[in-house]
């Protein structure tokens, strides 16, 4: 490890690895990845199911295999990394403070920092589920680690609250390990996960998915014994008389992911309350010059392929920033991108035509299920894009692509609006 680096990447999961490889391939030789776990790869290491990499590698890989493709590149390219290392602080002047067993607490001044810390799961406490607080309640990802990494089964009779992708994957995993998954309850009237996971992980195993249902009681003083599930109305309040009791020894929670931005917030980076991630421009640069963000710490993705693609851009842009003498590059001023009417947010939130590539992918999610609706893009008040989509749902990311030429033609353009329209 050197005393200073051009680029310090916080997190060695899929985003951090892809950013590092891209930065190196863009010509920078001074890159350090800081990873808190014992190995690189992040959460992919415990995602032993397949379905990763269809976009990136045109083949179906398991999580560890997908991670390994990037890890091998990191090794081949000789990129420095530190394992078992927790980043404790990031300063606005891009000094990173980290700690591990061997080096103690150390600081590394960097020219650019890439935030790639990923996300965490929403815990029971934040869901305010009433009842006892016994053993046997896990976030789905925690249970996934226990099963896939440690090799232990939490229980044999499982109820899952929330239909996020990790919960769906764990429904299948626990079933294959001999457990009985009795029901998946989802508070919302739609699933939070990918359609393919509902088909492959629930439908194929006959596991019922109850939409507009939630857990209203947890029984068991020491270990969970049963839960009560009830229907909720449009106001998300319980409908009396719909309560059903399920005996179980395990309750898994898959109720949403939260970008892990404690470091970003204490660095003073501007956050987007909708995504829980940083506000970024077309270069994936945050409100702090030279600090970039990508992957699930920026906004929660549905597919890792998009994480890799986004992280690649963050890595390349960090190198551009350094090559420009750590100054803002060629700038034409910011055009704001606004999400409206069903589109919940966009990443990025601003675009500068002076810096943007020929094509810029803008990703967003919708707030409800939309059938036969249109994704519309307005340049100021003029509708310039109107694409029909058969179905859009909150569990899947949507995207539009902006062309530099289109924007460059309109010198006075101030606002780009993305919205969902019925017609």
């Amino acid at each position, binding site marked *: 490890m050197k005393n200073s680096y051009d680029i310090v990447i916080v997190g060695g999961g899929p985003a951090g690895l892809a950013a590092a490889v891209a930065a190196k391939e863009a010509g920078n030789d001074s890159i350090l990845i800081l990873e808190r776990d014992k190995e690189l790869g992040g959460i992919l290491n415990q995602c032993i199911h397949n379905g990763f990499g269809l976009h990136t590698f045109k083949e179906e890989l398991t999580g560890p295999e997908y991670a390994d493709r990037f890890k091998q590149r990191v090794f081949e390219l000789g990129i420095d990394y530190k394992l078992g290392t927790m980043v404790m602080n990031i300063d606005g002047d891009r000094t990173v*403070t980290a700690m*591990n*067993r061997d080096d103690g607490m150390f600081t590394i001044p960097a020219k650019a920092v890439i935030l790639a810390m990923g996300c965490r799961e929403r815990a029971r406490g934040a869901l305010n589920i*009433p*009842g006892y607080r016994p053993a046997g309640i896990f976030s789905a990802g925690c249970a996934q680690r226990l099963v896939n990494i440690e090799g232990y089964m939490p229980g044999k009779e499982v109820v899952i609250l929330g239909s996020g992708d990790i919960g769906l994957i764990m429904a299948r995993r626990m079933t294959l390990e001999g457990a009985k998954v009795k029901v998946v309850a989802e508070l919302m009237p739609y699933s939070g996960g990918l359609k393919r996971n509902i088909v492959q992980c629930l439908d194929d195993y006959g596991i019922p998915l109850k939409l507009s249902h939630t857990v209203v009681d947890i029984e068991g003083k*020491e270990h969970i014994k049963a839960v009560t599930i009830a229907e909720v109305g449009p106001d998300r309040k319980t409908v009396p008389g719909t309560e059903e009791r399920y005996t179980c020894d395990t309750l898994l929670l898959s109720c949403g992911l939260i970008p892990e931005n404690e470091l970003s917030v204490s660095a003073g980076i501007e956050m987007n309350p909708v995504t829980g991630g940083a506000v970024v421009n077309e270069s994936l640069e945050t409100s702090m010059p030279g600090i970039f963000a990508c992957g699930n710490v920026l906004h929660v993705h549905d597919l890792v392929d998009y994480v890799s693609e986004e992280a690649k851009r963050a890595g390349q842009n960090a190198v551009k920033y350094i090559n420009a003498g750590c100054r803002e590059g060629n700038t034409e001023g910011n055009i704001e991108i606004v999400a409206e009417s069903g589109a919940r947010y966009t990443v990025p939130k601003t675009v500068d035509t002076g810096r943007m590539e020929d094509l810029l992918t803008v990703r967003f999610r919708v707030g409800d299920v939309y059938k036969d609706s249109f994704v519309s893009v307005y340049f100021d008040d003029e509708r310039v894009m109107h694409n029909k989509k058969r179905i859009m749902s909150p569990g899947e990311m949507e995207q539009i692509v902006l062309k530099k030429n289109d924007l460059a033609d309109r010198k006075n353009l101030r606002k780009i609006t993305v919205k969902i329209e019925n017609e």
Partner: protein
Amino acid sequence: MYDVVIIGAGVTGAAVAWKLAEYDIKTCVIEKCSDVCEGTSKANSAIIHAGYDAAVGSLKAKLNVRGNEMMDKLCEDLDIPFKRIGSLVVCIHKEALPGLKELYDRGVKNGVKGLKLLSKEEALLTEPNLSDDTEGALFAPSAGIICPFELNIAMAEVAAMNGTEFKLNTEVKDIKKDADGSFRIITDTGELRARYVVNAAGVYADVIHNMVSAQKNHITQRRGDYCLLDKQAGGHVSHVIFPQPTDLGKGVLVAPTVHGNLIVGPTAIDIEDKEGTATTAEGIGELTQKAGSHVKSIPMNKVITSFSGLRAHEDNNDFIIEEVSDAPGFIDCAGIESPGLSSCPAIGEEVCDILKKLMNLKKKENVITKRKGVRRTEGLSAEEMNALIKENPAYGNVICRCESITEGEIIDAIHRPLGAKTLDGIKRRTRAGMGRCQAGFCMPRTMEILSRELGMSYEDITKSGGSSNIVLERTKEEAER
């Protein structure tokens, strides 16, 4: 034969053990749970009350004020986080202002120092997030916030360091009085004999009392639901904020915790079940609504956990700390509800005074009166951190990222006197798993350390003893290996 057996290792039992450990006697503490601080002592407001609430002349008033006075030295000696941040009782109806004055007068009679009635303007200046309806407030500078786990654990540790035995996972089934005046305590793990018995059994104090006395006691479980909010909300208020008290108690308070969270609660619901610590949607709804009446804009979307605790309410609404008249040598500490935490060191003294009259209590030589808590890394400078990591690299390995708790701290918690043997035990001693992700990240890592340090199999690791096992068995794949 023990000189004294204390039943219960909550804050009352631990305080009695802490005080008795100064004397040259053989003492044993029996606890039905797998750790100390597993009942009411772990689930309360974490407040050291000033002492204006309790009726003039009551034992609650006397011991609260005395306990409050003892707290600074105790916390310094035992290395417990304690902050005297003061409390405000807020009046939101003009017609209720005389009630504040009554409380003030009662406090003065109880011997509470520094009480002050604040005007609306003064109150809002002291605490800007008070309700817009605020009409005035009673300020009590001597109220404080504490870590109840640490207080309980530290007193027990000191007792253990001075030779007090602790029998955990041991439940008292019956108590018999022998002809020689001593007691036979029949437990699920065997029989013990003692000359004197101290009943500090919390919500079970009536059950234990009724084993030896014909004059039956009755304890009501008064459940209180709480919400604990993220540290981002910890600065919402800077004092302990109470509404005006009612017959059911001091009402729903809003306060920062010593660790920087915000606590909101408790409700007050009388229940039959002595183990009924389940929260309810109604309870959480009620506390949210009630807290909002005297503190505005509480960010309830920042809740990281909710829980409930049971107050051991005795029918006469006062502490009972006395030798049972028809069972000489048997001393009750019953009805120890709020302000029990505030009073606990004084309760220890009180029981000791009773025993002094019954037996020959001789001061021990070389009594250990001080204890260092788990060595914390929080707030250390880089130089201090590096010195510590050099000495023990485990302090460089962060296990709980939310609270920044290192492996070194967890190992310390496991190997100290009365060390942690469960995940909750580690949580209460170190705060690992107490942050916003509620152990979602660190649980498997903590299990690995617990398994390694105590030679436990993963299957035997529990959340809090009993049947609270975390995992059931090996996966099929692992079992076939």
